[in-house]
């Protein structure tokens, strides 16, 4: 049984008179103990998708249709996590590392206070002393010095702040960690260290990580499976190696071809055109205005995500037989 099953969710933003279809009819599942990546251009709805998964749905965002099933270990009919009670399971079963999360720390409070607030909100069944020892041993385990608890956020570097947030997110050993662009604002060397830390956590606690990034090189190095998103739809889901070796959707092909590599002196081509406006997306397949292979059917009908092999699904009319 998959840890997370998502059926045809659509999440829209409402503005004055228009709705932005940020996530449109998306279905996929995430297995236990895997690192699942969601990649795509900015504005394609990846952050909205993970916010919906985390259950953080606040106006102007609303869930138009669809359902999400969380199959956590001890969940049964009475005790299952649903959309309604998910907020009480935050940090314990599912935790979220938001975008730019190194800025979530309060600049005028010590890191200790941040952890204390976490205790007040989620862990009052433990005495504070026990909790404090838990925090220290957890930090120590992740290779962070315990004296950072006495620091203010401005005394830490960006990478350290990011690690503190990751440490907090993994403190109660949640089964699912959702990380939204955890490395995009960091330096190259620090980026690698932060990803290593996430791998270490995943390896030890055997939890599932969903990571969102626009950087395909992070994806290639980190994920076991990748979903490519375009204009609110998932267009391709595959195992990392299969996706990079044999991309099937025209968008994925262009995306992977446009990445510069060291030692590769080919002339690279950017993807022609620009991503569509999601308040009035194009008809049919949303990629058809930019696609070289667009046929009549692409303009009329929206393709569905179909499995080509066991681990490779694509939403494209060209591959349907």
């Amino acid at each position: 049984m998959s840890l997370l099953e998502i059926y045809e969710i659509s999440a829209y933003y409402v503005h004055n008179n228009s709705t932005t279809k940020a996530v449109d009819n998306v279905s996929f599942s995430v297995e236990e103990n895997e690192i699942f990546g969601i990649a795509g251009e900015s504005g394609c709805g990846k952050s909205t998708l993970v916010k919906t998964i985390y259950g953080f749905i606040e106006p102007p965002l609303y869930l138009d249709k669809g359902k999400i099933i969380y199959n956590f270990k001890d969940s049964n009919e009475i005790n299952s996590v649903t959309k309604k009670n998910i907020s009480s399971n935050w940090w314990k079963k599912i935790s979220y590392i938001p975008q730019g999360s190194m800025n979530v720390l309060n600049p005028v409070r010590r890191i200790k206070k941040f952890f204390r607030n976490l205790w007040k909100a989620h862990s009052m069944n433990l005495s504070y002393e026990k909790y404090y020892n838990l925090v220290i041993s957890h930090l120590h385990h992740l290779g962070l010095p315990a004296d950072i608890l006495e620091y203010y956020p401005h005394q830490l570097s960006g990478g350290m702040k990011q690690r503190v947030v990751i440490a907090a997110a993994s403190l109660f050993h949640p089964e699912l960690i959702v990380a939204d662009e955890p490395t995009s604002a960091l330096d190259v060397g620090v980026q690698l260290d932060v990803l290593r830390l996430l791998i270490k956590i995943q390896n030890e606690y055997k939890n599932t990580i969903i990571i969102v990034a626009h950087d395909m090189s992070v994806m290639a190095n980190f994920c076991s499976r990748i979903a490519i998103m375009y204009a609110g739809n998932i267009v391709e889901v595959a195992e990392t190696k299969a996706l990079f070796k044999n991309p099937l959707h025209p968008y994925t092909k262009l995306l992977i071809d446009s990445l510069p590599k060291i030692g590769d002196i080919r002339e690279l081509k950017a993807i022609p055109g620009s991503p569509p406006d999601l308040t009035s997306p194009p008809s049919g397949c949303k990629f058809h205005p930019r696609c070289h292979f667009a046929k009549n059917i692409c303009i009329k009908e929206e393709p569905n995500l179909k499995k080509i092999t066991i681990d490779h699904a694509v939403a494209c009319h060209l591959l349907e037989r």
Partner: protein
Amino acid sequence: MNAMEGISIKNVTKTYSQRILFSKKTFNAVENVSLDITTDPPEIFSLVGESGSGKSTLANMILQLIKPDIGEILLNGKKINDFEMLEFMKKIQPIFQDPFDSFDPMKKTDLFIYETVKNFNIARNKDSINYIIDQCLQKVGLNYQMIKGRYPHEFSGGQLQRIAIARALVVKPLFLVADEPVSMLDASLRISIVNLFKQLKEKENLSVLYITHDLSTAYYISDRIGVMLRGNLVEIGNAKEILGEPLHPYTQFLMKALLEPDPDKTKISLFDNEKNEEKMTEVSEYQLKGCKYANRCPNVKKICREKNPEYYYIKNRKIKCFLYEEFK
């Protein structure tokens, strides 16, 4: 002194000071940097390094936004502060990191280019101004109709960055200083901007100083590359050679940390026992007496901590590292 066509930076140092309560620390954000970038023939020179290594300080000194404390910068053999500001800006134009910050959100985008044309007295009547604007926009793959009467928020980041480049082209500059022009953009848009620089170099004879921390785009476009470490240029030379076979330990570290979009070359293995070495704070690394990399370098020797190395020449690259002492 030979009057070289282009920018020539001679032994430039910029010192900043940091005050914490009653103590004062000074450090050199740029330390004794010399560098020539030619505009004839045009070249794309990349400056790479971690954040806080003084790349932007160097760029701002070239743009005359800050003054160097020691040393001088020459443009075509003449000191840059001897130029009239308008004349200087006709030769060198900047492109900044965040295109959304370089535009006034309350003003129409075409007005931004229009004002540049007016300020530089390039054309006076409306038709010829419009013609110039259209010409410049076509060089970056847009046209006047597309941007007329629209506000910055109606464009994507990539489009806005193109418009910012078009604005810089209005004065027909010799030299563009692009400070992290693609770091705010998506990977798929990056390559289109980077290709644009390549095109401008070939068609408009424009030299570009491309400042970035992204080694793979630097490898892709640049002719020469300079690696910056805490104010020092530690390795300069042909981009393909340096990134193909890095010699300075810091460049080697950058290459090792670079993630590549290839799952076969994964660098984060599950059984990685490499320790997360705590980086020193920036300022304390700046204040090291010897080589600034001494505390992180795997090949550190005694002399590295005592003296800042000079340049050693290997083939056609310059390296600031005692490992290559015999090549003096």
